[in-house]
């Protein structure tokens, strides 16, 4: 279980390869990458975070995933600072004996991380700057885990 919060870019492919390499205890690896999407005129993005709390929140979410599912390993990397379209913002990876656990844990990590880890995106585009508003769907997505 590893959590990294960093300004520096990371190599998603290399992280996926290292995460999956030589596993004999887990038949299933799932990864997710979040990429800065350009839907019309986004020049750049600034990702603010809350140093200290960010690491705590991510570790708590990863611990909870490890408690709920039969994970052999899990990894969360999240960047902060300036980014441009095409940049990889963050990734999660999970390893489990069976695919249902690996998928569920990865989706859980993403749902919680979206709405419970202290990151805020500011967009700089042709129409000026604006803070990205939280999406109702993201808050609603948390509901599906409350029964588990």
């Amino acid at each position, binding site marked *: 279980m590893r959590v990294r919060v960093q300004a520096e870019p990371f190599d998603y492919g290399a992280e996926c390869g290292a995460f999956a390499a030589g596993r004999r205890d887990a038949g299933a690896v799932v990864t997710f990458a*979040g990429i800065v999407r350009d839907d019309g005129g986004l020049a750049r993005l600034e*990702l*603010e*975070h*809350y140093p*200290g*709390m960010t690491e*705590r*929140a991510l570790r708590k979410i990863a611990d909870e995933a490890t408690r709920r599912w039969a994970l052999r390993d899990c990894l969360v990397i*999240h960047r902060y600072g300036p980014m441009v379209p095409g940049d990889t*913002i*963050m990734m999660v990876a999970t390893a489990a004996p069976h695919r249902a656990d690996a998928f569920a844990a990865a989706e859980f990590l*993403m749902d919680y*991380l*979206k*709405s*419970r*880890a*202290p*990151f*805020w*995106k*500011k967009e700089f585009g042709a129409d000026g700057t604006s*803070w*990205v*508003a*939280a999406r109702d769907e993201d*808050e609603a997505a948390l509901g599906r885990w409350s029964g588990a």
Partner: protein
Amino acid sequence: MIDVLYFAWVRERIGLPKERVDTSAATVAELVAELKAREDRYAAAFADISALRVAVDQELADFDAPLAGVREVAFFPPMTGG
């Protein structure tokens, strides 16, 4: 004395990322009331509490959370990571 932190548009509206506040507020809500009374920029930032989230000692909390023994309180909009 409590460290009060502001993030995203709360930080921009108030105009600083962090300050030390000498307060005897018993809860987060009382601290918010004190801050709002200070200046317009605070009143503006805290105008709609439902649009804000709060963390107490780096854990998400409610606005009625007690402040006894607390070192750090942070105010920010709903998070948009991932």
